[in-house]
């Protein structure tokens, strides 16, 4: 779109770009000279300027509704189970172990569903959240592999001694069956670089993992650390760190955490 004298058709065509600041300085210069001498191009220039301002001022900017946003999130969520990783796993594990694809598929989908169960605007995890992630991942694994308990017993007198010699601390083992939270058993897990004791409770169909390990932190009250659609509460009492994780509804889990904390304090009074 060269410089110098320009013909009228060429000028007319460039007026849009002139208005939108999309011409080079020399092109704009040449065009400006033509417009100054051409009534038709002046009219075209004014018409376009007016039209642009009318559109900018009056044309609706349509925004997605919140309802549509959640629907969209849901449909992406549902599509994820069908995406690439499945093939990778199918190939690898079917050949090597002949494990039924159906089971792995179920695991995969529920894990990915877990990862997806957060809302649209997920924050990037910081160091504090990494421990939560690790514990939730441990919690999920325990559900996925029928590895909930190493010792299955509803009797605290069986569960408590089971930890002896396996860890160098003795977790408080209390049954809450009468409040609808029966003790189901215990297991060892490896979290945050150390072996920890895990007590398993159940409320209706929800498994609740209570992680216990010695920690040099000061005592602190129950704090909520829920993530990835799992609810988590943690506290420190007398040099012991407690983490309670479940997919049980937040309010119920919190009151159970309070209940457990109270009973532990009663069983290990201060001083």
């Amino acid at each position: 779109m060269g410089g110098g004298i320009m013909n009228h058709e060429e000028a007319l065509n460039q007026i849009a770009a002139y208005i939108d600041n999309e011409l080079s300085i020399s092109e704009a210069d040449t065009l400006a000279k033509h417009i100054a001498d051409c009534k038709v191009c002046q009219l075209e220039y004014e018409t376009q300027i007016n039209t642009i301002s009318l559109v900018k001022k009056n044309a609706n900017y349509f925004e997605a509704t919140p309802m549509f946003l959640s629907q969209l999130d849901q449909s992406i969520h549902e599509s994820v189970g069908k995406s690439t990783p499945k093939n990778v796993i199918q190939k690898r594990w079917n050949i090597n172990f002949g494990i039924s694809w159906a089971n792995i598929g179920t695991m995969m989908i529920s894990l990915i569903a877990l990862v997806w169960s957060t809302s649209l605007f997920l924050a990037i995890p910081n160091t504090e959240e990494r421990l939560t992630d690790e514990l939730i991942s441990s919690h999920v694994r325990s559900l996925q592999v029928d590895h909930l308990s190493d010792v299955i017993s509803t009797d605290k007198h069986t569960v408590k001694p089971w930890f002896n010699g396996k860890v160098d601390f003795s977790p408080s083992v209390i049954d809450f069956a009468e409040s609808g939270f029966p003790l189901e058993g215990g297991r060892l897990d490896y979290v945050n670089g150390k072996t920890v004791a895990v007590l398993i409770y159940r409320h209706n169909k929800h498994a609740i993992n209570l992680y216990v390990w010695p920690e040099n932190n000061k005592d602190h009250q129950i704090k909520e650390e829920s993530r990835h659609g799992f609810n988590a509460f943690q506290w420190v009492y007398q040099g012991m760190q407690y983490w309670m994780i479940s997919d049980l509804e937040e309010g119920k889990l919190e009151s159970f955490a309070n209940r457990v904390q109270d009973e532990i304090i009663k069983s290990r009074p201060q001083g």
Partner: protein
Amino acid sequence: MIKLVLTDEIWKLAMNESNRKQRFQTTVMPHINSAFNLARWLTRGNQEAEDIVQEAYLRAYKFFDSFHGEDGRVWLLGIVRNTFYTWHHQNKLQTQFVEFDEELHGSEANENLRDDEYNPENILIQKDNQRIIQNALNQLPIEFREVMVMRELEELSYKQIAEITQVPMGTVMSRLGRGRKQLATLLHSGINNGGGHNEP
């Protein structure tokens, strides 16, 4: 033991999926309103726009590996536009019928709106202006309407619009010029004829 190793493996993959989702959320998700606005102007209907955007997002997520961190909005709008054209061509017979129908409604609406001609204040109030501009824009051929929405409402550069529409920048320029001129003509005749067409 095998079971544990296996789930670790799956967990790792799930975590990769999580990272992918996070990248998607920071680069593509924020442009949801741009996507919806473009789809709404292309389809001229809310439900249709939602269908297009939903399908476009599923495609975007599926082909997210082909996105190399360029301009997320341009990348997404290109997919929205392609999704729209696929849908548009598939529904061509139906669409032609609907457009014919719209025109029928339009002329009826024109008859009803004749009164407005004698009441110029009506034309000046904001709501009416919005309706008039919307009707006029909706009557523009799609190739003009889409560049005007991208330029006037999204304020995209010619380079970005050229990338989304897959045409040279010179074509973007001439479509914008012609679109603006046609719109001015439509608005002029619309006001003289009593407010233009009604929304279908």
